[in-house]
């Protein structure tokens, strides 16, 4: 399969538009507020689409389809009990404090509410995390495009090997994202995220259409695949009766409560989009508007996995079988990789590209590839804008240069953009050398993040919580997460990155179950320790906490808004529709 002129044209038109948006916006980017906060001037619908687009990176597109193929429709739990309730909560209850306080970032809220050390802990770990996760996703995407071998031809004609596809992929995407974020800051990132959102939908909908048609619709898929793949709740009673190896309690508490609320309610990458809104009510509507397309995303990102499992195909020898997912190849020998039982292993990460190459003729193939590239860029730009803001406001201004001019901080933001992207590229190459180091880093970040939601919950809704309590809670929650990980192992894994490095006391039926329970232990420890230490330390006077804590803040008034613009109405609609989806795909 080779690309033709029209595919290339589509890809380059896209590059032209994202850079063009950056150039046009440069004129409007005059102050640091324009650059880091998009001037706090965005309408809710734009923030809402950027809110989900920044999260819709390559890892989500590749990973959710891979899980869809492995675990089936139960992967939708990441949306229907994971993301959506958390997005409703952040919009209704937490946005008043993020948007209403003077904070310009999530770590800065922690300083206003608690103290400097809590902010420092969060700012530094978050800055490192964004750089590394952007590097990891860069690596994953470039590797994927290299494996596809569709860009090989032009490189071959220049006498360059397939390795160069990887290098050029990383350099070009880094330069384009650098270009538009450098020029227009957060406004440019948000505008392009909206553009990328529509592009991703436009590239994937025809793929779903063709795939579903081939598989005989949803009913065809249900007849072909085992019921375990086409039901989201049936079998969740016990870990042994579902493919994820988790029971309903661990699923709802671990994924639905701790992990999802921890991500959607405290991660500055997404919260920054809502904080760019032009009013309090727009900021509160942002996650609610985002939740509406988000709840339908399983159609776009999970369903491809099921389609790839269900459609009829022919292998190289011409024998018929079902499923399009290619086998894992051992890179050194070029042979198919086998697991411990001698069965060939599937490379689930190739689900989406395999579908693209199978169904898309030249022309629309260019659009599909552009959608893949767009998802990758939106995720990367999300990381970069969150990084440059936290670096400039919460590290540089806080600890390095306190009283510089606004123009200086604007300049520093642009420098941080260059530095952040350079560091991500570096991280991507580290990943090519030491796969394990990246796994370990991701694990450490998971430990740091898991307890965070307990800190915010207590900070926003319990005025007695103190800075010492929050800090001790975070540190002990992180310790609890690493202890739990060190003492448990998922079944069939060796001691090491997967856990058990302190001795395996308990074995989980799956890695996912272990992750969810690590999060539950971390959250609970942070919650309890924060309360205990707070009770023993001196609380701050009420007047200092106005606007930062629920009981000391005026409720936002929604009565003046039209009924369909009120956050509570939108929240009821979103939750009702999500419940319905859970029931339909029970």
């Amino acid at each position, binding site marked *: 399969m080779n690309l033709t002129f029209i595919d290339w044209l589509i890809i380059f038109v896209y590059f032209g538009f994202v850079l063009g948006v950056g150039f046009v916006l440069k004129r409007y980017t005059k102050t640091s507020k324009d650059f880091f906060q998009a001037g706090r001037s965005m309408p809710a619908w734009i923030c809402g689409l950027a809110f989900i687009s920044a999260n819709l990176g390559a890892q989500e597109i590749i990973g959710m389809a891979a899980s869809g193929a492995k675990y089936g429709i139960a992967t939708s739990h990441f949306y229907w009990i994971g993301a959506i309730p958390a997005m409703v909560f952040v919009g209704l209850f937490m946005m008043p404090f993020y948007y209403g306080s003077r904070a310009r970032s999530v770590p800065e809220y922690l300083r206003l509410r608690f103290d400097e050390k809590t902010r420092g802990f969060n700012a530094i770990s978050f800055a490192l995390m964004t750089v590394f996760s952007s590097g990891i996703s860069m690596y994953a995407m470039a590797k994927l495009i290299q494996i596809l071998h569709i860009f090989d031809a032009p490189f071959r004609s220049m006498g360059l090997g397939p390795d160069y596809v990887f290098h050029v992929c990383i350099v070009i995407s880094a330069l384009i994202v650098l270009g538009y974020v450098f020029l227009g800051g957060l406004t440019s990132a948000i505008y392009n995220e909206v*553009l990328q959102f529509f592009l991703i939908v436009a590239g994937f909908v025809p793929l779903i259409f063709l795939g579903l048609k081939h598989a005989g619709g949803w009913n065809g898929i249900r007849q072909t695949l085992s019921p375990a793949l086409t039901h989201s709740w049936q079998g969740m009673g016990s870990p042994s009766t579902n493919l994820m190896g988790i029971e309903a309690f661990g699923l709802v508490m671990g994924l639905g409560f701790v992990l999802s609320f921890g991500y959607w309610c405290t991660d500055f990458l997404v919260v920054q989009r809502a904080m760019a809104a032009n009013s309090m009510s727009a900021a509160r509507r942002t996650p609610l508007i985002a939740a509406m397309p988000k709840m339908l995303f399983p159609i776009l990102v999970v369903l491809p996995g099921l389609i790839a499992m269900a459609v009829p195909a022919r292998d190289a020898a011409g024998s018929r079988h079902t499923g399009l997912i290619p086998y894992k190849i051992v890179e050194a020998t070029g042979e198919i990789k086998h697991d411990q039982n001698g069965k060939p292993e599937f490379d689930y990460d190739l689900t989406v590209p395999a579908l693209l190459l*199978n169904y898309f003729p030249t022309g629309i193939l260019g659009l599909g590839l552009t959608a893949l590239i767009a998802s990758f860029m939106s995720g990367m730009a999300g990381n970069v804008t969150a990084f440059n803001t936290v670096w400039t406001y919460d590290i540089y201004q806080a600890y390095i240069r306190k009283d510089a001019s606004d123009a200086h901080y604007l300049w520093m933001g642009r420098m941080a953009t260059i530095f952040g992207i350079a560091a991500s590229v570096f991280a991507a190459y580290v990943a090519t050398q030491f796969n394990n180091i990246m796994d370990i880093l991701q694990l450490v970040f998971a430990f740091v993040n898991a307890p965070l939601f307990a800190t915010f919950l207590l900070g926003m809704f319990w005025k007695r919580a103190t800075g010492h309590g929050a800090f001790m809670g975070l540190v002990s929650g992180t310790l609890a997460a690493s202890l739990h990980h060190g003492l448990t192992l998922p079944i069939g894994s060796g001691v090491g990155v997967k856990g058990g490095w302190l001795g395996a006391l308990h074995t989980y039926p799956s890695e996912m179950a272990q992750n969810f329970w690590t999060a539950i232990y971390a959250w609970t420890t942070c919650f309890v320790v924060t309360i205990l230490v707070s009770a023993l330390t001196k609380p701050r006077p009420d007047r200092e906490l106005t606007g930062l804590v629920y009981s000391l803040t005026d409720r936002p008034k929604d009565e003046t808004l039209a009924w369909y613009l009120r956050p509570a109405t939108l929240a009821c609609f979103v939750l009702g529709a999500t419940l319905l989806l859970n029931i339909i795909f029970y």
Partner: protein
Amino acid sequence: MGLDIRLPIGLMFAIFGVLLAGYGLFSDKSVYERSLGININLIWGTILIGFSVILLWLGSRKGHRD
């Protein structure tokens, strides 16, 4: 903000739509074997043109900047 984002997005989809639909009109039938015999370029290109018209219309309404 001086730029209504619906305009560049609309313009981009207009270009994509015209490219795909145009290619769909003139391309050989054998190209569409993999898409189950459906001329997906023509169909999806036309739909994208329709979508771009809506965006361009929404973005260019006078005095209605939100």
